[in-house]
């Protein structure tokens, strides 16, 4: 069964059953138009209409603090690697967040593989939820090709009024359909309605920034010394919010911590951010990205340039979190617009 139907009156029943299988996480409202992925057991708790959560779903794939090693030097050196994981179902991920997880999967599957990440990832079931329209003006998902579903999920829900049409993408998704006993077979007219929605979406989701996707890497090739980076120097507070909320930022620090008995200890990793003052500080107190402009530029290149060379894909999912969270109002779309404007000037000058 590739497509199934869930009638809305059965939604709460479905969620209750789903939460009985294993821990279930979904977007919930935190007030003030803020949302977060948190554990739920009933359908009522879920915010079905939500803008991207404060932190993306990466917090389940790459926990903000994770023990890697436990050591004990009571009788000689003795260390044991540890992997922390918990089976969990994530419900309601938008296509931007699914895309972010695909990016992380690529990074952590590269050799040497990150077994902590991979073990955890294999225990997570992903259920997507389609955006029938833009969440808000900060999103730029179409620019980076993340406005339509393109895999990376077990089930994918699309709201079509009285019912959801659900794409069953994996055996794990099939199992959920069987176990929850809430679904019906999709009829032809329902599939047509799905097609109509997608046709309609193609009209409303348009490139948020006036540039052809394929030209973005070239734009960045031209922009290393662009004026806009200098402008960001004056505005950025270096609070690291933009990277912490980014679904594809994965930089981490590794720290050894010894217990109070001074013998046992753990090695753990925590999220780090290239925007923070100490990130690029090395022995001798030298900081090779001391200017906030250099750090901001680095962030943009890590989204639109470097990963294109390495993974053939943008590491921006267009979710808009970095713009929404920035106190200084640094906007991803505005920055790209500035770069385009400036590169046009440069192209003109070359002709003159």
């Amino acid at each position, binding site marked *: 069964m590739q497509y199934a139907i869930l009638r809305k009156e059965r939604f709460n029943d479905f969620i209750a059953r789903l939460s009985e299988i294993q821990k279930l996480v979904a977007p919930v409202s935190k007030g003030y138009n803020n949302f977060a992925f948190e554990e739920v057991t009933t359908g009522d708790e879920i915010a079905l209409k939500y803008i991207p959560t*404060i932190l993306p779903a990466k917090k389940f794939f790459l926990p903000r603090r994770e023990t890697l090693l436990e050591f004990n030097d009571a009788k000689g050196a003795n260390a044991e690697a540890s992997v922390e994981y918990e089976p969990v179902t994530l419900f309601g991920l938008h296509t931007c967040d699914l895309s972010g997880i695909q990016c992380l999967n690529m990074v952590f599957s590269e050799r040497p593989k990150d077994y902590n990440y991979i073990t955890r990832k294999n225990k997570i079931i992903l259920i997507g939820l389609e955006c029938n329209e833009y969440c808000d003006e900060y999103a730029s998902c179409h620019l980076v090709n993340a406005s339509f579903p393109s895999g990376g999920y077990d089930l994918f829900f699309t709201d079509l009024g009285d019912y959801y049409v659900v794409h069953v993408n994996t055996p794990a998704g099939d199992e959920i359909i069987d176990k929850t006993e809430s679904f019906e077979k999709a009829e032809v007219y329902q599939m047509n309605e799905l097609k109509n929605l997608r046709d309609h979406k193609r009209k409303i989701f348009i490139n948020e920034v006036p540039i052809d996707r394929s030209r973005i890497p070239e734009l960045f090739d031209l922009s290393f010394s662009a004026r806009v980076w200098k402008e960001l120097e004056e*505005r950025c507070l270096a609070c690291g919010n933009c990277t912490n909320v980014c679904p594809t930022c994965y930089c981490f620090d590794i720290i050894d911590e010894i217990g109070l008995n001074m013998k046992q200890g753990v090695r753990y990793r925590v999220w780090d951010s290239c925007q923070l*003052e100490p990130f690029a500080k090395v022995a001798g107190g030298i900081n090779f990205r001391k200017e906030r402009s250099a750090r901001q530029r680095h962030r943009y290149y890590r989204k639109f340039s470097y990963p294109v060379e390495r993974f053939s894909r943008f590491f921006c999912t267009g979710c808009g979190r970095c713009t929404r969270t920035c*106190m*200084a109002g640094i906007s991803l779309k505005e920055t790209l617009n500035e770069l385009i404007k400036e590169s046009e000037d440069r192209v003109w000058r070359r002709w003159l």
Partner: protein
Amino acid sequence: MKKPRVAFFDFACCEGCQLQVANMGEAVLDIIGLIDVVEWREVMSEKWNGKLDVAIVEGSITDPHAVERIKQIRKRSKIVVALGSCATIGGVNGMKNNYVLDEIRQYVYGNSYQFFPTEATKAVHQVVKVDYFVNGCPVYIPELVAVLKAVLHGIPYDVPDYPVCVECKLNENVCMYDRKVACLGPVTRAGCNSWCINNGNICYGCRGMVSNPNEKGAQDVIAKYNISMDLIVNKMNMYNKCREIG
């Protein structure tokens, strides 16, 4: 290995940070097992005038007598740890520095004010060298434990040099600015796990400022949210007045 000899001292403060140590729970027993506490006025009556491995100092330096006393403590201690906002950044005692010294002295001590010499409030490191800083009002127990472990190991402890926003965001708190409330998180050093904001309060800046704050950017943000500069300066000066001494 001989246990390190440790003493607690207090200067101008509420002694609340020492109380935090006493209130640490089970961890305090582990720590007491590792060290030899020879003086700690708040919890014991013994005194010690000899050499010390570690002096843990709470409070800010506010008069000539205190200057002399902290210099003596420094002289006989291998390691000096500044405990809490008063010791690390001057803290609320710094508010005295908003006034002309003689006037404020008269206000506090009345007619006999000349018998009470006073000085501008200083953090401990503004008078003697400090080896470890435990920020906060009061100190945050998990950080205090981390610092004590670093002291006992003889390794440095680096106070995070990034704003509280980092920890606050990881805790998925709704930003205070989204709630239309001014908060000092964006310029205050992290390390407290955004303790206050997790509990519904704003950040008061008790841990001191990040080393390289973007003042121009912060002004723009304040203007964007329509907050008066006076309000922010007042909030900052509640804990951070002594930073002007340098």
